[in-house]
């Protein structure tokens, strides 16, 4: 058994809404082995951001953890006090958020923000600034010393994203959580940042939880992939398993929808017909049954069990239970 840095076990989260309880996450199980990069894919609204919110314990005030928990190495996070949790944030794990243009403080200089996040270290301000500049240099910001005194509005989006990554790495976390860190960037920059992230991960030895819509980026960067659909994990496995042997119909469709996968000239881009199910009245059968081409009556009635396809490749689908050979 490999050592786990993050273990999300059986996690369920509801949001209280005027219409009733919205079951945003249901029985999520996913692990991040130490030193690995794990990607989460899934369409908007599948619960990726709620999952991150739960991990860093910064959920919206109407969210409620109904079951399960999150373990960071040996610590069960939901048992920690507010103070203890605050002590973990920005120390043992750190975050890179989606939108670099708004996720840095507009009235505090980059240097001061980078110095502020090192508030736990007992070194002088000068040394902190030097560390910050060194980290900016590593993520490829030219002339970092003089850049420290500048404010976010003086940087381009790509630079801000690199600064956000530098900040997250500066605290030398055990786990780095990156929520679509490249969505705001153009393709060239995206590739640059992915490689930079991979390099830095290798040198610091941290683990990364990487959330993205972009399948190509996931394939390039990650060791393992978790496919989420509508608040559930439908399939997870190594990058190889997921991309070469996708076993859940949703994963297969998702891969077909990747524009990069289209080989022939076409007028219509492939899509997954239908929309996400209502999570206030969660369907009792398979969550994907409504949109699945191969769904049978059984799929609409009963929840599928998790099929173990190999050591760490698993998927939840009735078709796999009935005839494992169909997909595996």
């Amino acid at each position, binding site marked *: 058994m490999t050592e786990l840095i993050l273990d999300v076990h059986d996690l369920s989260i509801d949001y209280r809404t005027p219409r009733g309880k919205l079951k945003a996450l249901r029985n999520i199980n996913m692990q991040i082995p130490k030193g690995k990069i794990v990607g989460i894919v899934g369409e908007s609204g599948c619960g990726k951001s709620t999952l991150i919110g739960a991990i860093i314990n910064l959920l919206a005030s109407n969210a409620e953890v109904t079951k399960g928990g999150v373990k960071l190495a040996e610590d069960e996070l939901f048992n920690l006090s507010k103070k203890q949790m605050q002590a973990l*944030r*920005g120390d043992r794990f750190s975050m890179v*958020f989606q939108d670099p243009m708004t*996720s840095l403080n507009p009235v505090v200089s980059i240097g001061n923000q980078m110095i502020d996040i090192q508030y736990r270290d007992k070194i002088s301000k000068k040394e902190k600034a030097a560390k910050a500049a060194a980290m900016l240099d590593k993520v490829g910001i030219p002339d970092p010393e003089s850049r420290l005194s500048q*404010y976010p*509005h003086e940087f381009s989006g790509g630079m801000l994203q690199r600064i956000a990554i530098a900040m997250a790495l500066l605290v030398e976390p055990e786990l780095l959580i990156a929520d679509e860190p490249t969505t705001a960037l153009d393709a060239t920059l995206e590739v640059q940042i992915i490689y930079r992230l991979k390099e830095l991960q290798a040198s610091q030895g941290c683990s990364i939880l990487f959330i993205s819509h972009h399948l190509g980026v996931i394939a390039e960067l990650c060791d393992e992939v978790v496919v989420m659909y509508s608040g559930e994990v439908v399939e997870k496995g190594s990058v190889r398993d997921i991309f070469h042997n996708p076993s859940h119909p949703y994963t297969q469709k998702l891969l077909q929808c990747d524009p990069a996968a289209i080989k022939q000239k076409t007028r219509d881009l492939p899509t997954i017909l239908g929309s996400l199910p209502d999570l206030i009245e969660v369907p009792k059968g398979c969550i994907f049954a409504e949109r699945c081409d191969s769904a049978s009556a059984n799929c609409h009635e009963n929840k599928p069990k998790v099929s173990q396809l190999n050591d760490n490749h698993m998927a939840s689908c009735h078709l796999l239970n009935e005839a494992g050979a169909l997909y595996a």
Partner: protein
Amino acid sequence: MWFFLVKRCGLGVLIVCLAVTALYLMIHSIPGDPASIILGPRATEEMKAALAVKMGLDQPILIQLFNFFKDVFQGDLGFDVFSQRPVIDIIMEQLPHTLILILVSIMWAAAIGIPLGCYSAIYQNSLFDKISAILSVGTIAIPSFVVAIYGLLIFSVTLRWLPAIGAGDSGDIADQLTHLILPSLAVGLGWVGYISRLVRSSMLETLGANHIRTARAFGLPERVIIYRYSLRIAILPTITLLGVGVGYLLSGALFAEIVFARPGIGKLIFDAVSTRNYPIVMGSVLITTILFVIVTTLADFVNALLDPRIRAHA
């Protein structure tokens, strides 16, 4: 920053010049001949003509305007119709009373309103927030003359703790301060509500911003998040409001000045209008306009100091 400073000051001077021109043209277009107003109904035509020449009223309007500007920039605002004293001297006697009243009122209102709004936002929907909302709306709703009259009734008439009228003996600081308490209560009370509501809403907006989530995700202490990362942004609209507020109160403190029979610009303008003492009216309006521009420009400077984006987009 220097570029911003120069630009804003230039704009301020331009606004003052436009205001002076507008003011002069307005006075000029009022029906009736200033010479006959000054000299009274029994003046002869020769006397009127002589005075008109003396006042430069026989010159073309542009020349008159130019002379007016020249006088204004030399600090010459004309003479009081009744006492024949220079208008500028009379205004400068009254101005400190108004300024001290405004500053004290706004400062205590801000000192209470800013923390009130701030904590209402931090503890949103708590009991504290609800009580503060009621108090704020209440203080906004009560007209300042009601506060003034009840203040007088309770503290001066019934309890006899505080003096009722005047500004206190000049030279006796303690006496002047006790004379300030009731008027500044009347002037400032409504501002407590305005300020706390404004701070609360901008603080809520800031606390919900992505960059504050980032700060929390790095585990920064709550104190740093609130004072260093949030309040600095949330305070910006309030500073603008305070700038406009001080400017408005230059003549808006009139109520307090009349109820408490305090000397001040508001009272000066009120008396001058009642007696048609136009040089005083014009001089006072001019001075308050200039002060208004100065104060709002100052507010812009403070905002620019706090927010680098304002400096950049000057």
